[in-house]
């Protein structure tokens, strides 16, 4: 199978540090292409290898220079991928994150989403944090509109929300336990949704990771460590364009008057700063140049 010739055994341990990206395409979004683009940037900014967890259908006979691990996509439910229309509904294959521990060939791994644009060497600091497993507790809205405030907690009882967007783990007994618990949460998602009173129809890695962290830290929420800075994030109505290597322009409208439907246009840019870009379509346009 030509597209799979560079798939390596997932148990190899020839790299001690690396990045892992899950990328399973649906008919609306080419996650594999996004993952390859991000992996190129990982190499450029972090000097680290990337392993992409994907399947043959997503690869579609494309040749890439990154390490690939073939796995089985798991749908976390169906969702609409474009806020501007109701027609882009498809499966969201986001539910296999719990397999990361076994699939990663690295001793120390950072799992990142395929929409996390590496644009600096900031992620290298995560390897120095000294924890077996750690992720972000907070995100900040790069538009300044502060629209991620309600992501600080989830469920009726305001359970602390951790972001699975960037998830570091070191091969260790503690991290193995964490992923065992994460697997349990994944398999019993509806049960945990009933306990915490959140919608179980669409699987959310953030929720599963938050619950698993709470369990492995003995339900002592104050004891859970996190990455000591916030993820720069932009919502799905923000458009980006890659101006130069490490300069990203952001443009977006702010609704200043609902009744009269008045929008205020904004433009700003990021340099030497990573970006979690939720708008997959603007990411696609940027990748295509």
């Amino acid at each position, binding site marked *: 199978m030509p597209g799979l010739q560079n798939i390596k055994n997932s148990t190899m341990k020839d790299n001690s540090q690396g990045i892992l990206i899950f990328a399973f395409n649906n008919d609306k979004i080419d996650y594999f292409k996004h993952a390859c683009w991000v992996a190129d940037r990982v190499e450029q900014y972090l000097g680290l290898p990337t392993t992409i967890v994907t399947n043959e259908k997503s690869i579609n006979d494309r040749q890439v220079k990154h390490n690939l691990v073939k796995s089985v996509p798991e749908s976390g439910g169906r969702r609409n991928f474009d806020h501007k229309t109701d027609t882009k509904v498809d499966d969201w294959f986001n539910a296999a994150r719990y397999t990361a521990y076994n699939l990663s060939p690295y001793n120390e791994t950072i799992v990142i989403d395929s929409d996390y644009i590496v644009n600096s060497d900031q992620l290298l600091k995560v390897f120095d944090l000294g924890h077996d497993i750690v992720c972000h507790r907070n995100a*900040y809205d790069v538009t300044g509109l502060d629209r991620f405030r309600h992501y600080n907690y989830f469920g009726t009882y305001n359970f602390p929300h951790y972001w699975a967007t960037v998830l570091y783990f070191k091969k260790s007994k503690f991290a193995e336990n964490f992923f065992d618990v994460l697997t349990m949460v994944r398999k019993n998602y509806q049960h945990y949704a009933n306990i915490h009173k959140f919608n179980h129809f669409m699987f959310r890695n953030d929720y599963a990771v938050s619950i698993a962290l709470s369990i492995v830290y003995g339900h002592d929420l104050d004891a859970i460590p996190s990455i*000591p800075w916030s993820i*720069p994030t932009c919502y799905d109505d923000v458009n980006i364009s890659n101006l130069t290597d490490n300069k990203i322009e952001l443009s977006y409208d702010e609704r200043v008057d609902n009744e009269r439907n008045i929008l205020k246009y904004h*433009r*700003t840019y*990021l340099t030497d700063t990573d970006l979690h870009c939720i708008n997959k379509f603007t990411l696609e346009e940027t990748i295509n140049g």
Partner: protein
Amino acid sequence: MDNAQVNELVDTIKKRFNHNSAKKILKEKYESKMLFAESGGMWKASPELIVLLSSMDDDNIVLIDTYENPCYVNRQELLTKAKQCFQEQTNAWFAEYQELNNER
């Protein structure tokens, strides 16, 4: 004002740089870059850390890092690294802030 002038005006407005959000982005960016690892701990190169380290005399001291773990550190080594990181990042912050002001 004719249509061409209106369109030109709209284009100009759209290109206007959003200074406030860019300033906030800079703050988040450089605060995250102030973090560094040393002596088994994670530290923020803050004025408080630098003043504390400068005010003490002992070669080795115990300090609490950003994860609230006590760490046994070489005071001079940590001070040197904290000052270097603080100066590098604040200088870069200032330079980028000046660029922002020029785009207003």
